[in-house]
């Protein structure tokens, strides 16, 4: 929600098709900006087609999927499988509440990694872990131009 430099790395920020929550997206938008990203924030209930189109248009350095409505395990998996048809290398991470029973989220992690995510962030430490993950991305050459 602020201007970034033109050569800043780009993050596409999205949720799953059935998730209408957005405060998580507003927060992550600010957080990603603070870590030097230019953010394309797709907002609530993003159809997978819209995400794929944004991905092809913006060729982002990072895709972040945030979801809290309990359908993340199902739709998050469909989403990344679709994305991976077009792109095998870009980091794609997901986080939030993935199932209807909040505390059982851990059990969805292996399937989501299998499906193509490079990171899955759940539970009390999700945000801290995600911030740490952002720092590891900065160590990558093409992101080196944009430290916080």
């Amino acid at each position, binding site marked *: 929600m602020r201007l970034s430099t033109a050569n800043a790395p780009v993050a596409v920020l999205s949720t799953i098709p059935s998730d209408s929550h957005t*405060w998580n997206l507003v927060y992550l938008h*600010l957080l990603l900006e603070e870590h030097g990203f230019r953010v394309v924030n797709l907002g609530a209930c993003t159809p997978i087609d819209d995400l794929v189109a944004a991905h092809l248009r913006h060729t982002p350095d990072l895709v972040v999927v945030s979801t809290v409505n309990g359908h993340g395990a199902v739709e998050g998996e469909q989403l990344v499988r679709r994305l991976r048809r077009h792109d095998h290398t870009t980091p794609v991470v997901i986080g939030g509440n993935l199932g209807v029973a*909040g505390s059982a989220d851990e059990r969805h992690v292996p399937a989501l990694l299998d499906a193509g995510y490079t990171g899955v962030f759940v539970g009390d430490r999700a945000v801290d872990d995600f911030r740490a993950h952002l720092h590891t991305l900065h160590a990558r050459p093409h992101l080196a131009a944009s430290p916080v």
Partner: protein
Amino acid sequence: MTRGRFASYVADNQAAGRLVVQPRMGFATTEQMRGGLLAVRAARATTAGTLTLDSFTRVGDHASAARALVHGHDLNGYPLVAHGAVMTRAMLEDIAADDFPVQVRHGSALPLGIFHALLDAGLDATEGGPVSYCLPYSRVPLRAAIDEWAACCELLATVGDGRGAHLESFAGCMLGQLCPPSLLVALGILEGLFFRRHGVRSLSLSFAQQTNPGQDLDALLALRHLAAEFLPDCDVHLVVYTFMGLFPRTPAGAAEILAESVRLAVAGGAARLIVKTSAEAFRIPTVAENVAALEFAATQAARCAAPTRRSFDPAASPAYAEARLLVEAVLDLHPEPGAALAAAFGTGLLDVPFCLHPENANQARSRVEPDGTLRWTRTGRMPLRPATGHAADLGSAELIDMLAFNQRRFDAPTTEPTTPALSPAR
């Protein structure tokens, strides 16, 4: 004024001095949903039933909802269209009645299928609106939502025994928090005018508890005054929502924020309250937790003084002044409320802070003052003035702080400024 089942129940109870309390509640299977409604009906409180729909149904993906049911996966609400009218009538049999009306809550920007399904199932009350269920909850073009909601209203207006169905505007709850009340009030009136234009005459206007009870009460009184001015020929009641944002985590804090919302509802002349539960900060509440919250709210409401008709001076109300300005500016754009709303968002004349919908200007910003009052820090192209002395830019940590304001206020009240008194803010 003729009233359908839902509005009659609410009006009769309000006349008798009883606040109607209502949960959020939706389960995947008809068996679970029936159990939940039976428990709400049996609660020691004046309750209305709620069918909250699941997220797949909300976005029209009924195949995914049905797939989850067939495979025994859970859903975060009741899949009304997948179950269909025949099953839903059986689910509601001997439950939904004149003394226990049931409202469908859905969150859909394009709800015509849901409207057909609920009417086919014999239900006659729902909620939402062309703006309030589009901008916060979807990427659907606003014009498409407006057109579909117009058709929905016209469908509602034709049903039943001539008494029509009931529609609640969700505009007073936009994004749940951080929106200064004047914009919520204005949007409620504008959606009410839209409903009326398309034939719905039995409606309710909502307002969600925010972070300062004095400011909230002023907003609710302004909403009532504006409803009388702009919708004089409609049957209107007000509905208050217990705070919808990050919820207090302590049982005492959760109880107190709920109690505060009850006091707001009674003092502001609301007829109905949508409660939250002590489990809200952690997970979807159980039926028992919902019943406990409803009964607690009923007890609190009974303790409040009977609402006296407060003298309300519009000239002294901050919410009234800004809301009236916004409503009139929007209505000046086009004689049709729907077209006026579309034009208002298209030009940034209306601008919901932090709302990510592609057609929202998203230039406006607000903040929470130390006393909980919500103030504009940036108003974009809205005809309003921002408060002075604030930086409009906001960091992620500060956002989290603001979102957690009520959590801090109610979980650790002794370390925070004293909870403001319940009197209209000036």
